[in-house]
């Protein structure tokens, strides 16, 4: 009675195992590709609001994707969302620290600190950020203005308030998930959100209501 398999039988089993592993890996890659495609636009916008710089925002998204793909690709797909949020927040904080150090060196050397959000000469920031998707130019212009106003108001918030607001309001994260992504307590999340909302209301509500009234007329 044979105690084990050898020869062609074993080779077939090994081949079947290899094929199954390879198929699993391919499925996993496809799932990861699908996941990243589903989050890349929002991640870019989140980073763009934080940095006000297209290249820096792309670098942040690239870095976050690389870290997720290299370290956590084998985790359950359900875990990718919270992990990606956490990594993105971490990369944004790193960017802020590096930027602060860079600006201190620039000032020390007698230069002017970099102003994030500064547009290149001759470049229209609205043109660079928003593609024309609406058939009506008037509506499109109004939407672009609303976006620019919102971007500017969000950018003026302290980083934690800004990111807590975006994670809670836009990404729809719970207080607990936001706290985990930001690496802070749930109480801080509530406080940051409340302060961000108050500041945004004060800055935008009148402007947006005025626009709505103009639209009605």
């Amino acid at each position: 009675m044979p105690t084990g398999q050898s020869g062609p039988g074993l080779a077939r089993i090994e081949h079947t195992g290899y094929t199954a592993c390879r198929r699993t890996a391919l499925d996993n890659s496809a799932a990861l590709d699908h996941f990243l495609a589903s989050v890349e636009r929002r991640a870019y916008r989140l980073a763009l609001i934080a940095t006000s710089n297209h290249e820096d925002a792309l670098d942040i998204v690239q870095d976050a994707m690389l870290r997720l793909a290299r370290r956590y690709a084998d985790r359950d797909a359900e875990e990718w969302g919270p992990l990606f949020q956490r990594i993105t927040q971490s990369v944004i904080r790193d960017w802020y620290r590096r930027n602060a150090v860079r600006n201190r060196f620039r000032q020390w050397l007698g230069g002017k600190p970099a102003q994030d959000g500064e547009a290149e000469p001759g470049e229209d920031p609205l043109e660079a950020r928003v593609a024309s998707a609406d058939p009506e130019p008037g509506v499109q212009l109004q939407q672009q203005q609303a976006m620019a106003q919102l971007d500017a108001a969000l950018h003026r918030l302290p980083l934690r308030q800004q990111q807590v607001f975006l994670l809670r309001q836009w990404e729809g994260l719970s207080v607990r998930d936001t706290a985990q992504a930001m690496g802070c307590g749930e109480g801080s999340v509530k406080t940051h959100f409340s302060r961000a909302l108050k500041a945004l209301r004060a800055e935008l509500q009148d402007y947006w209501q005025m626009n709505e009234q103009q639209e009605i007329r």
Partner: protein
Amino acid sequence: MSKPEHKDPFLQQVQATLERSAQTLDDATLRELRQARYTALEARQRRPAWLLPMGGLAAAATVAVFSVSLWLAAPQPGVNEQLPLEDLALLEDSESLEFYEDLDFYLWLDDEQQDAG
């Protein structure tokens, strides 16, 4: 995942504006995002095995250099130098250390991209 005050008209407008901004990104940005995604997926599949021990060596070297620097830069008695606390926080940050641990990987990735370009 519950959204806060989702019936508030102001927040609804904020939500709609943010959503619209993500859906109307220009083609060039979308291409760059797609490229970033492909790079991440490719890097995951193509990381050479010989780089793994290099990460540990790079981290050890970084810690050694940092320790020696701190020792050499210890303040002399009577000299009241204020510590640059923010820079210290940056150096002791775990993410930054991770960056140095992965330095060899980023160098490899840079070479790959230069070869591809």
